[in-house]
């Protein structure tokens, strides 16, 4: 299949309908999507579509070069995001989005490498890759759609499933302590960590722009409703009532220690930017330490 690129220019101040005819489809954002792929597979009310829109809006507002931005995803409902974007994208095997992205970045450091994947993909089977990419401070952006379960395979419990949540593998309620992704990302060494819900579309977009422009391992967690699996089993209602609960329960904070930002099945959700520091990236360190040492003049041995 031939992939078509469309140059991402800044949108004109007043968009007019006539311009759309020249684009990909009926919607102004269609020019960032592969032709004919919409409607996507996601359920009615699924937050993945909002996250994809936020990413596309970030590309538009942040003026990302479509020829230099690549998206890698793993397996899961949100993993399909890579297939919808009209960029160089790669849908890897389960859990391996981060190593693939790391390879891309090291082979061609000029690229903006973005991973968009799910909580199960990035933190269960791919958990080790996450902590080590963060530890090394590889210059990639990670966007995680956290819907608290494995949506694609029918709603099993995963590493972010809150205590007492009902899933197909925890029919009496989850008895395992979940990961707090913000805390995990900070502890592993990420230089930028933000969390928003699917309702915070503008903040999500701006965090994505910031992450792509910032050198180092940046992590954006998006809390997304999965009404079909997680919502239904836990009687959280349809997508709309899940979104309304985000509106009522989100607390914007910059002061909270990431340790205290855990999310329960119900109750408050701390959102905001939690980490924003500067640290030399993996490539900086490698150039500085390993290559310099290799090139340094050798000491002559005393006889």
């Amino acid at each position, binding site marked *: 299949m031939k992939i078509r690129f469309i140059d991402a220019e800044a949108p004109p101040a007043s968009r007019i309908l006539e311009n759309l005819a020249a684009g990909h489809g009926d919607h102004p954002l269609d020019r960032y999507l592969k032709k004919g792929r919409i409607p996507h597979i996601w359920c009615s009310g699924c937050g993945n579509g909002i996250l994809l*829109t936020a990413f596309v809006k970030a590309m538009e507002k942040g003026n990302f070069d479509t020829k230099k931005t690549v998206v890698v995803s793993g397996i899961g409902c949100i993993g399909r995001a890579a297939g919808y974007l009209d960029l160089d994208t790669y849908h890897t095997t389960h859990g391996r989005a981060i190593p693939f992205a790391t390879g891309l970045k090291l082979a061609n450091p000029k690229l903006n490498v973005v991973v968009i994947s799910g909580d199960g993909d990035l933190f269960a089977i791919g958990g080790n890759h996450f902590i080590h990419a963060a530890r090394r401070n590889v210059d990639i952006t990670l966007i995680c759609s956290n819907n608290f379960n494995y949506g694609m395979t029918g709603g099993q419990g995963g590493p972010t499933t809150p205590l007492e949540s009902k899933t197909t593998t925890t029919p009496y309620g989850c008895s395992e302590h979940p990961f707090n992704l913000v805390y995990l990302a900070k502890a592993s060494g990420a230089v930028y960590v933000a969390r928003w819900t699917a309702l915070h579309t503008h903040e999500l977009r701006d965090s994505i722009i910031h992450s792509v422009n910032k050198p180092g391992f940046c992590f954006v967690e998006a809390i997304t409703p999965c009404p079909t699996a997680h919502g239904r089993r836990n009687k959280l209602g349809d997508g709309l009532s899940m979104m309304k609960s985000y509106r009522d329960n989100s607390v914007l904070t910059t002061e909270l220690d990431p340790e205290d930002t855990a999310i329960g099945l119900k109750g408050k959700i701390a959102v905001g930017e939690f980490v924003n520091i500067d640290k030399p990236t993996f490539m900086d360190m490698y150039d500085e330490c390993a290559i310099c040492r290799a090139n340094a003049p050798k000491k002559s041995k005393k006889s």
Partner: protein
Amino acid sequence: MPLDAGRREIVLGKVNIISHRCKGCRYCIEFCPSNTLAESEDFNEKGYHPPYVKSDAKCVNCNYCETICPEFAIFVTELEPRNLLSEDVVKTQSRARRRTRRE
């Protein structure tokens, strides 16, 4: 009316709905700050009720429906800028009055 109303221009929005893409999640309807949209009685080809623009509504061009729609089914284009009219300021005034009362 503000005293400088003659020098102010506002840009309202025109809502464009691609009905056949809509999956009826109602996010655009519920979260629109100016209550512009409503659910139609008609079905689209998927069997969902897409939104429509209410006849008396005024879209303030905030773009939120466009960013919240998971389906790329709704977007907003800007209308020609026009002068502020007295009917545009009614809401602002009542909100300001409410705030003074609370204080």
